[in-house]
Protein backbone atom coordinates (compact mmCIF):
# COMPACT_ATOMS: atom_id res chain seq x y z
CA UNK A 1 0.00 0.00 0.00
CA UNK A 2 2.69 2.47 0.96
CA UNK A 3 4.58 1.75 -2.27
CA UNK A 4 1.68 2.16 -4.60
CA UNK A 5 -0.98 3.85 -2.53
CA UNK A 6 -0.25 7.54 -3.02
CA UNK A 7 1.22 7.55 -6.52
CA UNK A 8 -2.14 8.17 -8.14
CA UNK A 9 -2.36 11.54 -6.38
CA UNK A 10 0.14 12.93 -8.91
CA UNK A 11 -2.25 12.53 -11.83
CA UNK A 12 -5.33 13.87 -10.04
CA UNK A 13 -4.98 17.42 -11.46
CA UNK A 14 -4.81 16.08 -15.01
CA UNK A 15 -7.80 13.79 -14.61
CA UNK A 16 -9.78 16.50 -12.84
CA UNK A 17 -9.09 18.91 -15.69
CA UNK A 18 -9.89 16.36 -18.38
CA UNK A 19 -13.10 15.36 -16.59
CA UNK A 20 -14.33 18.92 -16.03
CA UNK A 21 -13.48 20.42 -19.39
CA UNK A 22 -13.51 17.50 -21.82
CA UNK A 23 -15.35 14.37 -20.70
CA UNK A 24 -18.22 15.72 -18.59
CA UNK A 25 -19.24 18.39 -21.15
CA UNK A 26 -19.16 15.80 -23.93
CA UNK A 27 -21.02 13.21 -21.84
CA UNK A 28 -23.57 15.87 -21.03
CA UNK A 29 -24.29 16.40 -24.72
CA UNK A 30 -24.40 12.66 -25.42
CA UNK A 31 -26.82 12.10 -22.52
CA UNK A 32 -28.89 15.08 -23.64
CA UNK A 33 -29.24 13.44 -27.04
CA UNK A 34 -31.07 10.53 -25.38
CA UNK A 35 -33.32 12.61 -23.13
CA UNK A 36 -36.58 14.41 -23.63
CA UNK A 37 -37.12 17.86 -22.09
CA UNK A 38 -38.46 16.19 -18.91
CA UNK A 39 -35.22 14.26 -18.53
CA UNK A 40 -36.56 10.82 -19.40
CA UNK A 41 -34.81 8.40 -21.75
CA UNK A 42 -35.93 8.63 -25.36
CA UNK A 43 -34.79 7.81 -28.89
CA UNK A 44 -37.04 10.49 -30.36
CA UNK A 45 -34.17 12.98 -30.74
CA UNK A 46 -32.16 10.56 -32.85
CA UNK A 47 -35.27 9.82 -34.86
CA UNK A 48 -35.68 13.58 -35.27
CA UNK A 49 -32.34 13.64 -37.11
CA UNK A 50 -34.14 12.10 -40.07
CA UNK A 51 -35.92 15.38 -40.87
CA UNK A 52 -35.06 16.43 -44.44
CA UNK A 53 -33.25 19.60 -43.34
CA UNK A 54 -30.86 17.76 -41.03
CA UNK A 55 -30.34 14.83 -43.38
CA UNK A 56 -29.40 17.18 -46.19
CA UNK A 57 -26.98 19.08 -43.93
CA UNK A 58 -25.26 15.83 -42.95
CA UNK A 59 -25.24 14.77 -46.61
CA UNK A 60 -23.56 17.95 -47.83
CA UNK A 61 -21.10 17.92 -44.92
CA UNK A 62 -20.11 14.34 -45.66
CA UNK A 63 -19.85 15.12 -49.39
CA UNK A 64 -17.54 18.12 -48.79
CA UNK A 65 -15.45 16.16 -46.29
CA UNK A 66 -15.16 13.21 -48.68
CA UNK A 67 -14.26 15.39 -51.65
CA UNK A 68 -11.68 17.44 -49.76
CA UNK A 69 -10.21 14.29 -48.16
CA UNK A 70 -9.99 12.37 -51.46
CA UNK A 71 -8.50 15.30 -53.39
CA UNK A 72 -6.25 16.19 -50.44
CA UNK A 73 -4.92 12.63 -50.36
CA UNK A 74 -4.37 12.39 -54.13
CA UNK A 75 -2.70 15.79 -54.57
CA UNK A 76 -0.72 15.56 -51.34
CA UNK A 77 0.46 12.09 -52.34
CA UNK A 78 1.50 13.30 -55.79
CA UNK A 79 3.53 16.17 -54.33
CA UNK A 80 5.12 13.99 -51.62
CA UNK A 81 5.96 11.28 -54.16
CA UNK A 82 7.46 13.88 -56.50
CA UNK A 83 9.73 15.11 -53.71
CA UNK A 84 10.71 11.75 -52.24
CA UNK A 85 11.23 9.67 -55.41
CA UNK A 86 10.79 12.02 -58.35
CA UNK A 87 14.45 12.85 -58.76
CA UNK A 88 14.06 16.44 -57.58
CA UNK A 89 16.99 18.24 -55.99
CA UNK A 90 17.26 17.68 -52.23
CA UNK A 91 16.72 21.30 -51.23
CA UNK A 92 13.01 21.13 -52.21
CA UNK A 93 12.11 18.94 -49.24
CA UNK A 94 12.99 21.27 -46.34
CA UNK A 95 11.00 24.32 -47.51
CA UNK A 96 8.08 22.09 -48.56
CA UNK A 97 7.83 20.50 -45.11
CA UNK A 98 8.14 23.88 -43.38
CA UNK A 99 5.49 25.38 -45.62
CA UNK A 100 3.21 22.38 -45.03
CA UNK A 101 3.57 22.87 -41.28
CA UNK A 102 2.47 26.48 -41.62
CA UNK A 103 -0.31 25.93 -44.16
CA UNK A 104 -1.86 23.01 -42.26
CA UNK A 105 -2.28 25.42 -39.35
CA UNK A 106 -3.50 28.32 -41.46
CA UNK A 107 -7.19 27.57 -41.19
CA UNK A 108 -10.18 29.38 -39.84
CA UNK A 109 -11.34 32.91 -40.57
CA UNK A 110 -8.18 34.26 -42.32
CA UNK A 111 -8.18 31.35 -44.76
CA UNK A 112 -11.70 32.27 -45.82
CA UNK A 113 -10.56 35.88 -46.36
CA UNK A 114 -7.63 34.71 -48.47
CA UNK A 115 -9.90 32.75 -50.79
CA UNK A 116 -12.44 35.57 -51.04
CA UNK A 117 -9.59 37.91 -52.04
CA UNK A 118 -8.43 35.38 -54.64
CA UNK A 119 -11.48 33.62 -56.06
CA UNK A 120 -14.29 35.90 -54.89
CA UNK A 121 -16.22 38.01 -57.38
CA UNK A 122 -13.52 40.69 -57.50
CA UNK A 123 -10.64 38.45 -56.41
CA UNK A 124 -7.25 38.49 -58.10
CA UNK A 125 -7.57 35.22 -60.01
CA UNK A 126 -11.17 35.91 -61.03
CA UNK A 127 -10.14 39.31 -62.43
CA UNK A 128 -6.98 38.05 -64.17
CA UNK A 129 -8.84 35.19 -65.85
CA UNK A 130 -11.37 37.69 -67.16
CA UNK A 131 -8.83 40.28 -68.31
CA UNK A 132 -6.23 37.93 -69.81
CA UNK A 133 -8.29 35.06 -71.16
CA UNK A 134 -11.81 36.47 -71.26
CA UNK A 135 -12.99 33.68 -68.95
CA UNK A 136 -15.67 34.73 -66.48
CA UNK A 137 -15.72 31.86 -64.00
CA UNK A 138 -18.78 33.24 -62.20
CA UNK A 139 -20.72 33.33 -65.48
CA UNK A 140 -19.69 29.71 -65.96
CA UNK A 141 -21.43 28.77 -62.74
CA UNK A 142 -18.50 28.83 -60.31
CA UNK A 143 -19.31 30.18 -56.87
CA UNK A 144 -16.93 30.34 -53.94
CA UNK A 145 -19.89 29.98 -51.56
CA UNK A 146 -20.73 26.49 -52.77
CA UNK A 147 -19.74 22.86 -52.50
CA UNK A 148 -16.74 23.21 -54.83
CA UNK A 149 -15.72 26.57 -53.42
CA UNK A 150 -15.63 25.20 -49.88
CA UNK A 151 -13.81 22.04 -51.01
CA UNK A 152 -11.21 24.11 -52.85
CA UNK A 153 -10.69 26.23 -49.73
CA UNK A 154 -10.43 23.24 -47.37
CA UNK A 155 -7.72 21.75 -49.64
CA UNK A 156 -5.45 24.56 -48.47
CA UNK A 157 -5.02 22.82 -45.11
CA UNK A 158 -5.83 19.25 -46.23
CA UNK A 159 -3.03 18.88 -48.81
CA UNK A 160 -0.27 20.07 -46.43
CA UNK A 161 -1.55 17.72 -43.71
CA UNK A 162 -1.35 14.82 -46.17
CA UNK A 163 2.19 15.83 -47.19
CA UNK A 164 3.28 16.01 -43.53
CA UNK A 165 1.97 12.54 -42.74
CA UNK A 166 2.68 10.63 -45.96
CA UNK A 167 6.24 11.84 -46.65
CA UNK A 168 7.74 9.78 -43.79
CA UNK A 169 5.75 6.75 -44.99
CA UNK A 170 7.09 7.16 -48.54
CA UNK A 171 10.60 7.50 -47.19
CA UNK A 172 10.05 4.25 -45.32
CA UNK A 173 9.68 2.34 -48.60
CA UNK A 174 12.94 0.43 -48.77
CA UNK A 175 15.07 0.61 -51.88
CA UNK A 176 15.61 -3.16 -51.61
CA UNK A 177 11.91 -3.81 -52.24
CA UNK A 178 12.03 -1.95 -55.51
CA UNK A 179 15.28 -3.61 -56.54
CA UNK A 180 13.93 -7.03 -55.62
CA UNK A 181 10.83 -6.37 -57.73
CA UNK A 182 12.94 -5.21 -60.66
CA UNK A 183 15.24 -8.23 -60.46
CA UNK A 184 12.17 -10.40 -60.66
CA UNK A 185 11.18 -8.53 -63.82
CA UNK A 186 8.46 -6.22 -62.52
CA UNK A 187 7.66 -3.03 -64.42
CA UNK A 188 7.28 0.27 -62.58
CA UNK A 189 3.52 -0.10 -62.75
CA UNK A 190 3.66 -3.61 -61.35
CA UNK A 191 5.99 -2.50 -58.54
CA UNK A 192 3.53 0.19 -57.52
CA UNK A 193 0.44 -1.94 -57.88
CA UNK A 194 1.77 -5.10 -56.21
CA UNK A 195 4.41 -3.86 -53.73
CA UNK A 196 4.37 -0.17 -52.86
CA UNK A 197 0.63 0.55 -52.76
CA UNK A 198 -0.32 -2.50 -50.66
CA UNK A 199 2.34 -1.46 -48.13
CA UNK A 200 1.23 2.17 -48.18
CA UNK A 201 -2.47 1.32 -48.21
CA UNK A 202 -3.05 1.46 -44.43
CA UNK A 203 -1.19 4.79 -44.24
CA UNK A 204 -3.22 6.18 -47.12
CA UNK A 205 -6.55 5.02 -45.76
CA UNK A 206 -5.68 6.16 -42.24
CA UNK A 207 -4.66 9.62 -43.39
CA UNK A 208 -7.80 9.79 -45.48
CA UNK A 209 -9.88 9.16 -42.33
CA UNK A 210 -7.96 11.86 -40.48
CA UNK A 211 -8.49 14.40 -43.27
CA UNK A 212 -12.17 13.52 -43.35
CA UNK A 213 -12.60 14.17 -39.62
CA UNK A 214 -10.49 17.30 -39.95
CA UNK A 215 -12.80 18.96 -42.44
CA UNK A 216 -15.99 17.55 -40.92
CA UNK A 217 -15.46 19.41 -37.65
CA UNK A 218 -14.25 22.69 -39.19
CA UNK A 219 -16.53 25.61 -38.36
CA UNK A 220 -14.66 28.89 -38.67
CA UNK A 221 -13.57 28.70 -42.32
CA UNK A 222 -17.04 27.75 -43.53
CA UNK A 223 -18.78 30.31 -41.35
CA UNK A 224 -16.53 33.19 -42.43
CA UNK A 225 -16.77 32.11 -46.07
CA UNK A 226 -20.46 31.44 -46.47
CA UNK A 227 -22.16 32.99 -43.45
CA UNK A 228 -25.08 30.65 -43.03
CA UNK A 229 -25.90 30.26 -46.73
CA UNK A 230 -24.48 26.73 -46.98
CA UNK A 231 -26.04 24.65 -44.23
CA UNK A 232 -23.35 22.09 -43.42
CA UNK A 233 -23.61 20.35 -40.04
CA UNK A 234 -21.15 22.48 -38.00
CA UNK A 235 -22.77 25.69 -39.25
CA UNK A 236 -26.25 24.46 -38.47
CA UNK A 237 -25.10 23.40 -35.00
CA UNK A 238 -23.48 26.82 -34.56
CA UNK A 239 -26.77 28.52 -35.39
CA UNK A 240 -28.62 26.09 -33.13
CA UNK A 241 -26.36 26.88 -30.13
CA UNK A 242 -26.70 30.61 -30.76
CA UNK A 243 -30.42 30.80 -31.30
CA UNK A 244 -32.11 27.40 -31.20
CA UNK A 245 -33.05 27.50 -34.90
CA UNK A 246 -34.34 23.93 -34.75
CA UNK A 247 -36.74 25.01 -31.97
CA UNK A 248 -35.85 21.90 -30.00
CA UNK A 249 -32.72 21.99 -27.80
CA UNK A 250 -32.56 18.21 -27.60
CA UNK A 251 -32.46 17.90 -31.37
CA UNK A 252 -29.33 20.07 -31.16
CA UNK A 253 -27.76 17.57 -28.74
CA UNK A 254 -28.64 14.76 -31.13
CA UNK A 255 -26.93 16.64 -33.96
CA UNK A 256 -23.81 17.16 -31.87
CA UNK A 257 -23.92 13.46 -30.98
CA UNK A 258 -24.11 12.63 -34.68
CA UNK A 259 -20.99 14.72 -35.26
CA UNK A 260 -19.08 12.90 -32.51
CA UNK A 261 -20.11 9.53 -33.95
CA UNK A 262 -18.86 10.44 -37.43
CA UNK A 263 -15.54 12.04 -36.39
CA UNK A 264 -15.10 9.26 -33.82
CA UNK A 265 -15.49 6.53 -36.45
CA UNK A 266 -13.11 8.34 -38.80
CA UNK A 267 -10.48 8.66 -36.07
CA UNK A 268 -10.94 5.04 -35.02
CA UNK A 269 -10.24 4.04 -38.62
CA UNK A 270 -7.12 6.23 -38.53
CA UNK A 271 -5.81 4.62 -35.31
CA UNK A 272 -6.42 1.07 -36.55
CA UNK A 273 -4.86 1.74 -39.95
CA UNK A 274 -1.91 3.45 -38.37
CA UNK A 275 -1.03 0.53 -36.15
CA UNK A 276 -1.26 -1.74 -39.22
CA UNK A 277 0.97 0.61 -41.23
CA UNK A 278 3.64 0.64 -38.54
CA UNK A 279 4.21 -3.09 -39.01
CA UNK A 280 6.17 -2.33 -42.18
CA UNK A 281 8.04 0.67 -40.88
CA UNK A 282 10.65 -1.09 -38.75
Amino acid sequence: MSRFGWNWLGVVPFFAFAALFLMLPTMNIVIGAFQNPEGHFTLANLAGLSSPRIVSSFAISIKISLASAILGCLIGFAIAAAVVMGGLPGWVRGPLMTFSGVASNFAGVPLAFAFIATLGRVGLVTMLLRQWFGINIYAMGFNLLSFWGLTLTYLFFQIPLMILIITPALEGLKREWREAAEVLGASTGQYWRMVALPILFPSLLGTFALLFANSFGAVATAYALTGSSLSIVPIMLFAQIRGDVLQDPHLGYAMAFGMIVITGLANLAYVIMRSRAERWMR
Partner: protein
Amino acid sequence: MRKFWSWGAIIIGALYFLLPLIGTLEFSLRMRRGEYSLDAYRSVLADPNFRATFGYSVGMALATIVLGVLIVVPTAYWVRLRLPRLRPVIEFITLLPLVIPAIVVVFGYIRLYNTSSILPLTGTASGTNLLLLCGYATLALPYMYRAVDTGLSTLDVRTLTEAAQSLGAGWVRIIGNLILPNVLGAVMSGAFLSFAIVIGEFTMAALLNRPAFGPYMQLLGANRAYEPAALAVIAFAATWGCMGLMQLISRIAGVRKTAK
Protein backbone atom coordinates in the same frame (compact mmCIF):
# COMPACT_ATOMS: atom_id res chain seq x y z
CA MET B 1 10.28 11.82 -67.86
CA ARG B 2 9.82 11.16 -64.18
CA LYS B 3 11.46 14.51 -63.47
CA PHE B 4 8.99 16.24 -65.78
CA TRP B 5 5.99 14.87 -63.85
CA SER B 6 7.62 15.66 -60.51
CA TRP B 7 8.25 19.26 -61.45
CA GLY B 8 4.72 19.41 -62.82
CA ALA B 9 3.24 18.27 -59.49
CA ILE B 10 5.39 20.73 -57.54
CA ILE B 11 4.61 23.68 -59.80
CA ILE B 12 0.86 23.08 -59.80
CA GLY B 13 0.99 22.67 -56.02
CA ALA B 14 3.02 25.84 -55.64
CA LEU B 15 0.55 27.75 -57.83
CA TYR B 16 -2.40 26.56 -55.75
CA PHE B 17 -0.70 27.62 -52.52
CA LEU B 18 0.91 30.83 -53.70
CA LEU B 19 -2.03 32.32 -55.63
CA PRO B 20 -4.27 32.81 -52.58
CA LEU B 21 -1.38 34.39 -50.70
CA ILE B 22 -0.53 36.71 -53.57
CA GLY B 23 -4.22 37.39 -54.15
CA THR B 24 -4.74 38.34 -50.51
CA LEU B 25 -1.69 40.57 -50.45
CA GLU B 26 -2.73 42.29 -53.67
CA PHE B 27 -6.32 42.71 -52.47
CA SER B 28 -5.19 44.19 -49.16
CA LEU B 29 -3.29 46.91 -51.05
CA ARG B 30 -6.22 47.87 -53.30
CA MET B 31 -8.20 50.06 -50.88
CA ARG B 32 -7.30 53.35 -52.54
CA ARG B 33 -8.79 53.54 -56.03
CA GLY B 34 -6.29 53.25 -58.88
CA GLU B 35 -3.11 52.74 -56.88
CA TYR B 36 -1.62 50.43 -54.29
CA SER B 37 -1.52 51.72 -50.74
CA LEU B 38 -1.28 50.53 -47.15
CA ASP B 39 -4.61 52.17 -46.29
CA ALA B 40 -6.29 48.89 -45.31
CA TYR B 41 -3.50 48.12 -42.84
CA ARG B 42 -3.64 51.65 -41.47
CA SER B 43 -7.38 51.35 -41.05
CA VAL B 44 -7.08 47.98 -39.28
CA LEU B 45 -4.26 49.06 -36.98
CA ALA B 46 -6.08 52.28 -36.06
CA ASP B 47 -9.24 50.41 -35.09
CA PRO B 48 -9.44 50.31 -31.28
CA ASN B 49 -11.41 47.06 -31.52
CA PHE B 50 -8.49 45.46 -33.35
CA ARG B 51 -6.11 46.36 -30.57
CA ALA B 52 -8.54 45.32 -27.84
CA THR B 53 -9.41 41.93 -29.37
CA PHE B 54 -5.86 41.19 -30.49
CA GLY B 55 -4.59 42.04 -27.01
CA TYR B 56 -7.27 39.86 -25.45
CA SER B 57 -6.34 36.89 -27.64
CA VAL B 58 -2.60 37.31 -27.05
CA GLY B 59 -3.28 37.35 -23.31
CA MET B 60 -5.49 34.27 -23.66
CA ALA B 61 -2.81 32.48 -25.70
CA LEU B 62 -0.12 33.19 -23.10
CA ALA B 63 -2.43 32.07 -20.27
CA THR B 64 -3.26 28.91 -22.26
CA ILE B 65 0.43 28.11 -22.58
CA VAL B 66 1.00 28.57 -18.83
CA LEU B 67 -2.04 26.45 -17.93
CA GLY B 68 -1.05 23.81 -20.49
CA VAL B 69 2.49 23.58 -19.11
CA LEU B 70 1.20 23.39 -15.53
CA ILE B 71 -1.10 20.50 -16.41
CA VAL B 72 1.02 18.60 -18.91
CA VAL B 73 4.60 18.73 -17.60
CA PRO B 74 3.98 17.36 -14.07
CA THR B 75 1.55 14.74 -15.42
CA ALA B 76 3.79 13.48 -18.22
CA TYR B 77 6.76 13.41 -15.80
CA TRP B 78 4.88 11.63 -13.05
CA VAL B 79 3.43 9.03 -15.41
CA ARG B 80 6.87 8.23 -16.80
CA LEU B 81 8.35 8.00 -13.32
CA ARG B 82 5.71 6.20 -11.28
CA LEU B 83 2.69 5.14 -13.29
CA PRO B 84 3.92 3.84 -16.67
CA ARG B 85 0.86 1.60 -16.87
CA LEU B 86 -1.36 4.68 -17.10
CA ARG B 87 0.46 6.04 -20.14
CA PRO B 88 -1.87 4.63 -22.79
CA VAL B 89 -4.88 6.00 -20.89
CA ILE B 90 -3.39 9.48 -20.62
CA GLU B 91 -2.31 9.39 -24.25
CA PHE B 92 -5.83 8.41 -25.30
CA ILE B 93 -7.39 11.26 -23.30
CA THR B 94 -4.98 13.80 -24.78
CA LEU B 95 -6.02 12.68 -28.26
CA LEU B 96 -9.73 13.15 -27.57
CA PRO B 97 -9.78 16.89 -28.45
CA LEU B 98 -8.84 15.87 -32.00
CA VAL B 99 -11.81 13.49 -32.10
CA ILE B 100 -14.50 15.59 -30.44
CA PRO B 101 -15.10 18.74 -32.50
CA ALA B 102 -14.50 21.98 -30.58
CA ILE B 103 -18.06 23.08 -31.27
CA VAL B 104 -19.40 20.05 -29.38
CA VAL B 105 -17.09 20.64 -26.41
CA VAL B 106 -18.15 24.26 -26.09
CA PHE B 107 -21.80 23.23 -26.48
CA GLY B 108 -21.22 21.01 -23.46
CA TYR B 109 -19.67 23.92 -21.53
CA ILE B 110 -22.70 26.09 -22.19
CA ARG B 111 -25.00 23.34 -20.96
CA LEU B 112 -22.88 22.27 -17.98
CA TYR B 113 -21.74 25.64 -16.66
CA ASN B 114 -24.79 27.82 -17.32
CA THR B 115 -26.20 30.19 -14.73
CA SER B 116 -28.57 27.61 -13.25
CA SER B 117 -25.91 24.91 -12.69
CA ILE B 118 -23.77 24.12 -9.62
CA LEU B 119 -20.75 25.83 -11.17
CA PRO B 120 -22.23 28.89 -12.96
CA LEU B 121 -19.07 29.94 -14.79
CA THR B 122 -20.91 31.62 -17.67
CA GLY B 123 -22.68 33.96 -15.25
CA THR B 124 -19.79 36.40 -14.97
CA ALA B 125 -17.25 37.78 -17.45
CA SER B 126 -14.27 36.49 -15.47
CA GLY B 127 -15.92 33.09 -15.09
CA THR B 128 -16.48 32.89 -18.84
CA ASN B 129 -12.89 33.95 -19.45
CA LEU B 130 -11.77 31.11 -17.20
CA LEU B 131 -14.02 28.69 -19.08
CA LEU B 132 -12.64 29.86 -22.44
CA LEU B 133 -9.10 29.51 -21.09
CA CYS B 134 -9.80 25.92 -20.06
CA GLY B 135 -11.37 25.29 -23.47
CA TYR B 136 -8.24 26.57 -25.19
CA ALA B 137 -6.02 24.46 -22.93
CA THR B 138 -8.15 21.48 -23.98
CA LEU B 139 -7.66 22.32 -27.68
CA ALA B 140 -3.91 22.63 -27.15
CA LEU B 141 -3.66 19.45 -25.05
CA PRO B 142 -2.85 17.00 -27.90
CA TYR B 143 0.01 19.16 -29.20
CA MET B 144 1.38 20.12 -25.80
CA TYR B 145 1.34 16.57 -24.45
CA ARG B 146 2.95 15.09 -27.56
CA ALA B 147 5.72 17.70 -27.52
CA VAL B 148 6.48 17.33 -23.81
CA ASP B 149 6.30 13.52 -23.88
CA THR B 150 8.75 13.42 -26.79
CA GLY B 151 11.02 15.79 -24.88
CA LEU B 152 10.86 13.59 -21.75
CA SER B 153 11.69 10.47 -23.74
CA THR B 154 15.19 11.85 -24.35
CA LEU B 155 15.84 12.14 -20.59
CA ASP B 156 16.66 9.52 -17.99
CA VAL B 157 13.86 10.69 -15.72
CA ARG B 158 14.49 8.14 -12.96
CA THR B 159 18.20 8.84 -12.52
CA LEU B 160 17.69 12.61 -12.64
CA THR B 161 14.99 12.37 -9.99
CA GLU B 162 17.06 10.15 -7.70
CA ALA B 163 20.07 12.44 -8.03
CA ALA B 164 17.93 15.47 -7.16
CA GLN B 165 16.28 13.67 -4.25
CA SER B 166 19.61 12.58 -2.78
CA LEU B 167 20.60 16.24 -2.86
CA GLY B 168 17.47 17.04 -0.89
CA ALA B 169 15.20 18.56 -3.55
CA GLY B 170 11.41 18.41 -3.16
CA TRP B 171 8.90 17.68 -5.92
CA VAL B 172 8.18 21.29 -6.83
CA ARG B 173 11.89 21.97 -7.10
CA ILE B 174 12.52 18.82 -9.15
CA ILE B 175 9.83 19.68 -11.67
CA GLY B 176 10.51 23.43 -11.76
CA ASN B 177 14.31 23.50 -11.65
CA LEU B 178 15.24 20.18 -13.20
CA ILE B 179 12.60 18.68 -15.49
CA LEU B 180 11.17 21.88 -16.99
CA PRO B 181 14.53 23.35 -18.10
CA ASN B 182 15.45 20.01 -19.64
CA VAL B 183 12.31 19.80 -21.77
CA LEU B 184 12.19 23.54 -22.46
CA GLY B 185 12.77 23.09 -26.20
CA ALA B 186 9.84 20.68 -26.42
CA VAL B 187 7.67 22.92 -24.25
CA MET B 188 8.47 25.89 -26.48
CA SER B 189 7.49 24.05 -29.66
CA GLY B 190 4.21 23.03 -28.02
CA ALA B 191 3.77 26.61 -26.85
CA PHE B 192 4.15 28.16 -30.29
CA LEU B 193 1.71 25.69 -31.78
CA SER B 194 -0.77 26.51 -28.99
CA PHE B 195 -0.25 30.21 -29.65
CA ALA B 196 -0.98 29.79 -33.36
CA ILE B 197 -4.15 27.83 -32.56
CA VAL B 198 -5.50 30.20 -29.90
CA ILE B 199 -4.73 33.54 -31.53
CA GLY B 200 -7.30 33.18 -34.33
CA GLU B 201 -9.69 30.70 -32.69
CA PHE B 202 -13.27 31.47 -33.61
CA THR B 203 -15.80 28.84 -32.54
CA MET B 204 -15.31 28.74 -28.77
CA ALA B 205 -14.84 32.48 -28.37
CA ALA B 206 -17.88 33.28 -30.50
CA LEU B 207 -20.18 30.85 -28.71
CA LEU B 208 -19.01 31.99 -25.28
CA ASN B 209 -19.40 35.61 -26.41
CA ARG B 210 -15.89 36.72 -25.56
CA PRO B 211 -14.27 39.70 -27.37
CA ALA B 212 -11.51 37.65 -28.98
CA PHE B 213 -9.62 38.18 -32.24
CA GLY B 214 -11.35 35.36 -34.18
CA PRO B 215 -14.92 36.70 -33.82
CA TYR B 216 -13.61 40.22 -34.50
CA MET B 217 -12.09 39.07 -37.78
CA GLN B 218 -15.33 37.32 -38.74
CA LEU B 219 -17.38 40.44 -37.99
CA LEU B 220 -15.00 42.63 -39.98
CA GLY B 221 -15.18 40.16 -42.86
CA ALA B 222 -18.95 40.45 -42.95
CA ASN B 223 -18.89 44.27 -43.05
CA ARG B 224 -15.77 45.45 -44.87
CA ALA B 225 -14.06 44.72 -48.17
CA TYR B 226 -10.33 45.36 -47.94
CA GLU B 227 -9.54 45.22 -44.23
CA PRO B 228 -10.20 41.45 -43.99
CA ALA B 229 -7.49 40.81 -46.59
CA ALA B 230 -5.07 42.90 -44.55
CA LEU B 231 -6.05 40.89 -41.46
CA ALA B 232 -5.48 37.63 -43.34
CA VAL B 233 -1.98 38.79 -44.30
CA ILE B 234 -1.25 39.71 -40.68
CA ALA B 235 -2.64 36.37 -39.46
CA PHE B 236 -0.61 34.42 -42.01
CA ALA B 237 2.54 36.27 -40.99
CA ALA B 238 1.78 35.48 -37.33
CA THR B 239 1.26 31.76 -38.09
CA TRP B 240 4.45 31.72 -40.14
CA GLY B 241 6.31 33.45 -37.30
CA CYS B 242 5.07 30.93 -34.73
CA MET B 243 5.96 27.93 -36.89
CA GLY B 244 9.31 29.42 -37.88
CA LEU B 245 10.27 30.06 -34.25
CA MET B 246 9.12 26.55 -33.37
CA GLN B 247 11.34 24.96 -36.00
CA LEU B 248 14.25 27.19 -35.04
CA ILE B 249 13.98 26.18 -31.40
CA SER B 250 13.64 22.48 -32.11
CA ARG B 251 16.65 22.72 -34.43
CA ILE B 252 18.73 24.47 -31.75
CA ALA B 253 17.59 21.94 -29.15
CA GLY B 254 18.39 19.13 -31.57
CA VAL B 255 21.87 20.49 -32.22
CA ARG B 256 22.50 20.76 -28.48
CA LYS B 257 21.32 17.19 -27.92
CA THR B 258 23.58 15.74 -30.60
CA ALA B 259 26.50 17.85 -29.40
CA LYS B 260 26.28 16.32 -25.92
